[in-house]
């Protein structure tokens, strides 16, 4: 076994090109757990947590570029939270403080678990994943990146360098249902973002399908029926229809954490709550 502690992005890409079977290691909160449990072998490892270029973020106008090794603790922190509030809310629910200090957005994406908490937020934001290898950089839209349960669009030798998200003017919500309050994997989750300039509402669901799903019909209804000039929530009948359409978009299964029926019910409740909260005075508004 070899471990390469990469210091630059070029080093990391070169190491992966040399050993296409090598596994990429970031915070280790998914990978090392599987290794310690004997579920996954690690022969060659390329560790990314010391690559400075992957650790920071920068803002370019209305776009935020998050390095792949940005941690959940950083996403939840004072600098980033005002820019993408739903991502911060999602990051805050990941694991415990120790996990959030280690867990990265790149790792959450690459793991591509249906329960990955940043995924519905990234789906609602139409995030773009920057994929890098020795051959160069390519952009993959989020809905093409997560290809199935725990599978992604990365080819051998490729890694995630960054994730780009828009900085929107409008409230955002991330809501998650789990089996308990502390350190919990989601049974159902929902991200709702409002784009005042574009006059639209975007909703994505987690843990209720193999990949994050957008509730497109619900989005159209809400975007249509919101009084954008007054910034007021639609009436109760529309909110109910919205929630029903969100539930229809879910394709949940029964598993050890919950039944399909429970999950469908849960996202309906979350949808109603998120839309109401987003249009109540005092809700988080992005910069």
């Amino acid at each position, binding site marked *: 076994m070899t471990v390469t502690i990469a210091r630059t992005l070029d080093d990391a890409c070169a190491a992966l090109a040399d050993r296409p079977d090598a596994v990429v290691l970031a915070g280790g909160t998914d990978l090392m757990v599987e290794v310690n449990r004997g579920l996954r072998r690690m022969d060659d490892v390329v560790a990314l947590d010391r690559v400075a270029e992957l650790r920071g973020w920068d803002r370019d106008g209305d776009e935020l570029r998050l390095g792949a090794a940005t941690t959940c603790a950083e996403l939840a922190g004072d600098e980033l939270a005002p820019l993408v509030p739903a991502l911060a809310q999602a990051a805050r629910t990941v694991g*415990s*403080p120790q996990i959030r200090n280690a867990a990265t957005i790149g790792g959450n994406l690459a793991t591509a678990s249906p329960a990955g908490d940043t995924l519905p937020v990234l789906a609602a934001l139409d995030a773009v994943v920057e994929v890098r290898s020795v051959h160069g950089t390519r952009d993959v839209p989020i809905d093409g990146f997560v290809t199935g349960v725990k599978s992604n669009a990365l080819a051998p030798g490729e890694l995630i360098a960054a994730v780009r998200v828009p900085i929107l003017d409008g409230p955002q919500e991330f809501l998650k249902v789990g089996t308990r309050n502390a350190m919990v994997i989601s049974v159902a989750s929902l991200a709702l973002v409002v784009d005042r300039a574009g006059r639209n509402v975007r909703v994505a669901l987690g843990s209720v399908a193999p990949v994050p799903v957008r509730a497109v019909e619900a989005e159209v209804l809400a975007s249509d029926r919101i009084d954008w000039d007054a910034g007021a929530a639609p009436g109760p009948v529309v909110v109910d229809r919205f929630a029903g359409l969100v539930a229809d978009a879910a394709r949940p299964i029964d598993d050890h954490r919950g039944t399909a029926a429970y999950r469908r019910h849960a996202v309906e409740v979350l949808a109603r709550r998120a839309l109401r909260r987003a249009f109540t005075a005092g809700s988080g508004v992005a910069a």
Partner: protein
Amino acid sequence: MEVSVTVNGTVRSADVEPRTLLAHFLRDDLGLTGTNIGCDTSSCGACTVLVDGRSAKSCTLLAAQADGAEVTTIEGLAGEDGLHPMQQAFHECHALQCGYCTPGMVMAAVSLVDEYDDLDGDSVREGLEGNLCRCTGYQNIVKAVLAATE
């Protein structure tokens, strides 16, 4: 491979297998057995140490990833003038029974107090969500952490 980590203020180097976990490096190579391993899957928090000042679960971190970092373990808390205030508070509030979770719990608590000023019972419970205790029922642990902040 050669790994060099500043542990409790002293640079410690060892030639380790690349797969060595930080928890094993601390316990087996350096003899610092205060850091316990409860689950080795990042769930229980018994192995919590500080890496560059932040709480980390040392069971899912390679020693190689900590190369060049500063690590603080439970052995590094007490000073010349006695126990660290958090250790003293755990002692005085009877915040332990079997003691297995205690080193990790104390390290997580130290990191929590370092990060937040206005802790109350709820935020202490939330901040220690990554640390499990099978014995105490947490009541006295929360009491101790709050006592240490006074």
